[in-house]
C-alpha cells in the first residue's frame, strides 16, 4: 500500500475459544455414534489400582456371556496380566498397552476395535488404567462410566477424588465381604458419594463371594 516503515506493532490479543480436548471429544462422539448404530452397549470402568476392576469384570463377563455377545478392552500401562485373567471368561478380550500414558483416550479405543465387527456384539466393557485422576478428562464414547472403590480404600475416596466420581454414572463398592474386617462405614461412604454426585446409583458387592452381583447384573440387563 505504501512504503513508509511500519511502526512497532503492539501485542495483539486474539480470541480463540477452542476446547483443548476437542480432538478426543470429536473422536469419542464418533465412537458413540458407531456403538449406537451397531446397538452395542458400552460401559467403562475406572478405579484406583487394586480396587478389583478385573475380578468384577471377570464375574460380569462370565454371567453375561450365556445371554449376550460380550467383549472387553483392557487398558494397562505395561502388562497383559489383566487381559489374560479376563480371557478365562472365554469372551473376546483385547489389551491396550498404554506404555507411560496413565489413562485411555478415544483414539486408543478406536485402534483397539480395529477388525472387530461391532454388529456381532451386544455389550462391550472398557477397563481403564488404574487411576482415579487422569481418566476423568477423557471421553471414550462409553454409554455408562462405572467408578469402583473397594472397602479397603476407605469411605472418603469420593471426597478425595470428586472429579472422577462426578463424571461417573454408577458407583460400585467392591470387596464388600471384607467390610467388617476393615470396619468400613458404608453409610458414610454412601453419603460421600451422594455429596460429590447427587443421585448416583450405588452397588455394594463382592466379586469373590458373588454377594450383590445379581442386583448389578439386573441393572445391566435392563440397559441391554
Amino acid at each position, binding site marked *: 500500500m505504501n512504503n513508509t516503515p511500519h511502526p512497532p506493532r503492539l501485542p495483539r490479543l*486474539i480470541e480463540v475459544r477452542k*476446547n483443548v480436548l476437542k480432538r478426543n471429544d470429536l473422536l469419542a462422539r464418533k465412537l458413540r455414534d458407531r456403538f449406537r448404530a451397531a446397538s452395542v452397549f458400552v460401559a467403562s470402568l475406572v478405579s484406583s489400582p487394586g480396587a478389583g476392576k478385573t475380578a468384577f469384570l471377570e464375574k460380569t463377563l462370565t454371567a453375561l456371556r450365556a445371554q449376550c455377545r460380550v467383549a472387553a478392552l483392557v487398558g494397562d500401562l505395561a502388562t497383559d496380566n489383566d487381559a489374560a485373567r479376563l480371557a478365562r471368561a472365554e469372551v473376546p478380550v483385547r489389551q491396550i498397552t498404554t506404555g507411560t500414558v496413565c489413562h485411555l483416550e478415544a483414539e486408543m479405543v478406536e485402534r483397539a476395535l480395529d477388525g472387530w465387527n461391532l454388529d456381532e456384539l451386544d455389550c462391550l466393557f472398557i477397563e481403564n488404567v488404574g487411576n482415579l*485422576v487422569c481418566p476423568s478428562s477423557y471421553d471414550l464414547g462409553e454409554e455408562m462410566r462405572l467408578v469402583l472403590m473397594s472397602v479397603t480404600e476407605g469411605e472418603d475416596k469420593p471426597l478425595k477424588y470428586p472429579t472422577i466420581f462426578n463424571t461417573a454414572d454408577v458407583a460400585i463398592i467392591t470387596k464388600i465381604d471384607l467390610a467388617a474386617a476393615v470396619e468400613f462405614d458404608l453409610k458414610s461412604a454412601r453419603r460421600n458419594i451422594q455429596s460429590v454426585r447427587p443421585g448416583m446409583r450405588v452397588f455394594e458387592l463382592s466379586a469373590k463371594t458373588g454377594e450383590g452381583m445379581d442386583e448389578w447384573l439386573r441393572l445391566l440387563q435392563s440397559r441391554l
Partner: protein
Amino acid sequence: MHELSIALSIVEGAGEEAARRGGKVSVVHLRLGQLSGVVKDALLFSYDLACEGTLLEGSRLMIEEEPVVVFCPECAAERALASIQSFRCPVCGALTPDVVRGRELELVALELTYEQHAASATPATTD
C-alpha cells in the same frame, strides 16, 4: 499425571492458531474449570516442557480458574459451589447434580507479538 499430554495439546492448538494468523505467541490464556480433572500447578509445570523446541518456547500460560456452577432446582437459579466435595446449593442446601459450568478446558485467547523488522514482511493481513 496427564497434564503433560494436556499441555502438548495446548501448545499444538495455540501453534496452529499462531501459524494461521502470523506472529509469535507471547501469552496463552486458558480457562480451567474446577471439574476439568486438570491440576493447575502440574499444568503450569508441564507447559514449559511442552513448549521446548516449538514456536511457543518462551511464552507464558495464564490460567483463569472457573468455579463449578450448578443449577439449583429449589432456588431455580445458578449457584457457584464453594467446594467440589459438596454438590449442595450454597443458599438453600439442596443437593443438585446439574452442572452448568466448571468442566472447561478451553484455549480462550492468544497474545501475539510481531518483530519490528519482520513486521513489514509478515503477511498478517492476508488469509
